[in-house]
């Protein structure tokens, strides 16, 4: 199994969620993060204080999937999150040794449903 970590634009979240839904990826965890990459910086002024905002708002997705789902999931994200402008984000794929479903105690493949794409 793998853990897919994606950092995307907040305003692309809904599109990505939709794409994942179509890819039949059911479970995922989302968090608000701040990111820095090639984006140009925003300048803000508060009275005498001027600041460069070095970090942009991003959304981080964490998705545990079984092997057959890795490419499907990555493709879904790449497709839905792209705008073509600097700041679109990154996707990381990390290997996972164990997965447990807390509710049932099921392990590994069984814990990330469906284990294989409907098509297969």
């Amino acid at each position: 199994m793998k853990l897919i970590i994606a950092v995307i634009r907040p305003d692309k979240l809904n599109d990505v969620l939709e794409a994942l839904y179509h890819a039949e990826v059911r479970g995922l965890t989302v968090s608000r993060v701040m990111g820095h990459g090639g984006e140009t910086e925003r300048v803000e002024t508060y009275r005498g204080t001027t600041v460069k905002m070095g970090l942009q708002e991003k959304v981080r997705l964490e998705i545990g999937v079984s092997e057959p789902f890795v490419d499907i999931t990555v493709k879904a994200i790449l497709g839905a999150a792209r705008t073509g402008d600097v700041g679109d984000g990154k996707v990381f794929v990390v290997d996972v040794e164990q997965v447990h479903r807390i509710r049932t105690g099921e392990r590994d493949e069984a814990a990330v449903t469906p284990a294989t794409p409907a098509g297969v």
Partner: protein
Amino acid sequence: MTTPLLLAVVQDATPALVPADTAWMLVSTALVLLMTPALAFFYGGLVRSKNSLNTMMMSFVALGAVGILWALVAYSLSFSEGSALLGGLTNAFLAGVGTEPKGTIPHILFMAYQGTFAIITAALISGAIVERMRFGPYIAFIVLWTLLVYAPVAHWVWGGGFLGKLGVLDFAGGTVVHINAGVSALVAALVLGTRKDYHRQAILPHNVPFVLLGAGLLWFGWFGFNGGSALAANGSAATAFTNTFLAPMATLVVWALLDAFRNGHVTAVGGATGIVVGLVAITPAAGFVSPVGALAIGAIATFPSYFMILLRARTRVDDSLDVFAGHGIGGITGALLTGVFAEKAWGGTDGLLAGNPEQLGLQAIGVVSSLIYAGVATLVILKVLGAVTVLRAEPRAEGLGMDVTQHGEEAYTSGEGSILVLPAESDAPSPAPTLAPAAR
């Protein structure tokens, strides 16, 4: 408002200051001024966090731009001697506006009191075009609008213009303030077009407690708005005040019931909206109807506004904070119901129920004339402005949020990862080397 004023003048041939009336009008003016910051919170809480400062500033800036315009020109155009359509320039630049009595209060105070109405009326419109209109053009718009729409209509009704002469009843501004702002908001929303996320993503209120705070402070200020429109601390003020106390209660309760029936929940945003709609509806009637009439008006006025909000949300008309449904429809309902419930016994002219159907007709005339004039004039103003400048922010700026793009600020910042640009070196390279290659 004319009625009590005339009365006052009649009462003492040689008008003199009445300290008690002055005291009440000093307070009323402060109360109505507070309504504009209150509106900033009512509106600001309803938008997304990234647009909250911009939305609030649309109200606050009216305090400056419209307020000054009022003192310099618009007051005179509204209230000084003039034609049936527009006042003159006798009082331009506050000429001849001093502490001498106007009715029973200092003239200068009367000017300030009326100014607070002009300010909030302009600010009300902003609710229709939030989250997308550029700030500069917005300011230009409300300035022109106050001059070309508010001042004339105020003159028609209160300044000795034709509607007042006709006998149209508008105690505290149902027509001048709410119908005026409501229809203009509708037109503005149509001209500006929908927000890029409209009907594509959920756009939710970022801070509902702010909406409740705004509603509470609006109610509080509205006692000056309606009660103060008696221009004296007398029975008429007490009637207007009490009706302003009762009508929103009825709207709040009926709104809650409709919410409960429709989606099984009484909502907080609905409650706040109901209070405002009730206040709008009672505004033209406040000093003319009985308390029981006020309860009836509050209850009845709930329905058109409630369902207009549902209907509007299904259309492509992005009147973002439903200014038309709330103030336009609410104001129309109130203006017409004034013609139904008004009673001589309570300070008005008799209305339909008191056996005088004509009054309802007169009210309709008031409604229609302001609807048409304000609608057309707003369209013209925005088209002209749109020809000389760009009214809307770019989609990208809209996505980033109006706070950052229009004001270079964020409502809530933690300062994390923000690099200080020491003023000393704002042009020289910044000491804390910035992260982005750009900065090289």
